[in-house]
C-alpha cells in the first residue's frame, strides 16, 4: 500500500490510488461498472428526453433548454475532453518514457513530486488564474485541462515502465534488439495496462473539469448549469447537472472499455 501514502488532490485520481486490483479476469466490480454504467446512461438520457418533451416549462425554462443549444454544448464538452485527452497523452507518455531512460532517471522522482504538489491546486483556481494570464476562451481551458490531466498519465507511464522486469529487457538486448526495439516491443506493451489506467483517470478528470470551462468562455455543458443557477430555475439546474453527470459516466465507461481493449493478450 505504499502507493496510497502520498495524497494527491484530484477527484478521479483518488480512486486509482486506493488500490484497485486488476486481474486477468473481470471481477464483479468491473462487471457492475461495465454493464451498469451504459444502463444508467441510456435510462437517464431517455428519461431526460421524455421529460424535456413532455414537461410543462415556463417560457424562461424553455428558452434556457432548447435542444439545439443542448447539442452544441454537449459537442463542445466532448471536444474539450477529447482534445484535452489527446494533448495530454502526446505530452505525458513521451515525457514518461524520457524520464525512465538512463540519462534522466534521477529526475523522475523530482518531476513526479512537483506534479503531485501541483495537483493540490484547486481546479477552479487554476482555470481562472490561467484565464487572467492568457485571456478567456477555448484554448486557455484546454491548457488548464491538460495541466490537470497530465499527472496521472505521466505517473502511470513512469510506474508502468519501471515495473517491467529488467531480465526481460536484458533478454531483449540478448537477442539483438536495439534500445528502441526493446522499448517498442517489450517495455511499452508490458506497461500499457498501467498507462491506460492513467489515461482513464485522466479522462474522468478532463470531463469533470471541462464543466468549469464555461466560467472562462471555454464552452461545454457547464454553461447550461451556470444559466440555470443564474436564473435560479430548478428544472434547468437539475437537467444540466444530470446531462453533465451522464456524459461523465459515459466517458468513464469509454475509458474502461479502452483499458480492456488495450490490454495485451499475453498478460
Amino acid at each position, binding site marked *: 500500500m505504499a502507493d496510497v501514502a502520498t495524497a494527491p488532490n484530484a477527484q478521479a485520481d483518488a480512486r486509482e490510488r486506493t*488500490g484497485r486490483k486488476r486481474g486477468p479476469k473481470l471481477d464483479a466490480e468491473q462487471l*457492475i461498472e461495465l454493464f451498469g454504467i451504459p444502463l444508467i446512461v441510456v435510462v437517464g438520457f431517455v428519461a431526460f428526453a421524455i421529460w424535456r418533451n413532455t414537461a410543462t416549462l415556463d417560457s424562461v425554462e424553455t428558452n434556457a433548454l432548447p435542444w439545439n443549444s443542448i447539442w452544441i454544448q454537449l459537442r463542445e464538452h466532448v471536444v474539450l475532453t477529447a482534445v484535452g485527452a489527446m494533448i495530454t497523452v502526446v505530452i505525458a507518455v513521451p515525457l514518461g518514457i524520457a524520464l525512465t531512460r538512463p540519462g534522466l532517471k534521477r529526475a523522475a522522482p523530482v518531476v513526479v513530486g512537483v506534479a503531485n504538489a501541483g495537483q493540490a491546486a484547486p481546479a477552479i483556481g487554476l482555470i481562472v488564474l490561467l484565464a487572467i494570464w492568457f485571456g478567456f476562451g477555448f484554448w486557455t481551458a484546454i491548457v488548464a485541462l491538460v495541466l490537470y490531466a497530465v499527472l496521472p498519465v505521466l505517473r502511470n507511464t513512469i510506474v508502468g515502465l519501471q515495473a517491467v522486469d529488467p531480465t526481460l529487457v536484458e533478454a531483449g538486448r540478448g537477442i539483438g534488439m536495439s534500445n528502441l526495439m526493446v522499448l517498442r516491443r517489450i517495455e511499452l506493451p508490458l506497461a500499457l495496462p498501467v498507462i491506460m489506467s492513467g489515461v482513464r483517470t485522466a479522462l474522468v478528470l478532463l470531463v469533470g473539469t471541462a464543466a468549469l470551462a464555461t466560467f472562462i468562455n471555454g464552452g461545454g455543458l457547464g454553461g447550461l448549469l451556470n444559466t440555470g443557477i443564474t436564473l435560479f430555475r430548478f428544472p434547468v439546474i437539475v437537467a444540466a447537472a444530470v446531462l453533465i453527470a451522464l456524459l461523465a459516466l459515459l466517458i468513464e465507461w469509454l475509458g474502461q472499455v479502452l483499458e480492456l481493449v488495450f490490454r495485451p493478450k499475453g498478460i
Partner: protein
Amino acid sequence: MWDFIVERRSQLLINGFNHVYLVFLAVVFATIIAVAIAILVTRLPKLEPVANAVSAIGLTIPSFALIGLLIPVSKIGDGTAIIAVTFYAVLPILRNAVVGLQGVSPTLLESAKGMGMSEFTSLYKVRIPMAWPVILAGIRVSTQMSMGIAAIAAYVLGPGLGTFIFTGLTGYGGANAFNNVFVATVAIIVLALILDLLLIILGRLTISKGIRVA
C-alpha cells in the same frame, strides 16, 4: 500583492478558517459514514463489489454537477457545500476501509475469538486498529480532494476561500482580479499541504505500534 494580503488579512483568515473547517467537518462525517458502511460490508461480503463500484462511479460525477443536483434539495449556501464535499470525501475512505477491514487475517480474528472477544470487541480491538493505516490513507486522499471541491462550492455561496476566486472572476480586468485568484489558490494549496502534514502526524500518534512500518 503584499498590500492586498495585508489589507484583507482578516477576511482571508476568516475564509481560510471556514474553508478548513468545512473540509474538517466533511471529512469527519465522511469517515464515520464510510467506516460504518465498510463494517456492514464485512458482515455481508457480497456487497463488496457493489461498494467499490459505487465509490468508483461516484467519483466520476463532476462536483459542479453534483452541486447543481443538490441546489433544489439543500438550497444555495453552506448546506449544499457541506453535503457535496462530504459525498466525495466518503468515497476514497469507503474503498480503503473496505480493503482494510477485509484484509485483516482470519487467523487474527480467530485468535481474538479464542481469547473470548465478542464480535464487537474484536471489531474495535482488532479489525479497526489493523485497518487504521489504510483507512487513514483514504482520509488523506479525501482531505486533499475536499479542499478543491470546497473551492467550487463557493460558487453557490458556500463558505471558504473559493469566494475570492469567484470575486476575481467577476472582477476580471479589475485591479485586484489577479490578486484575489492567486492568493486564494495558493492559500488553498498551502492549507491542503498543512492538513496533509497534520494527518501524517495523526497517523504517527494513532497507528498501533505493533504494525507501524519503521
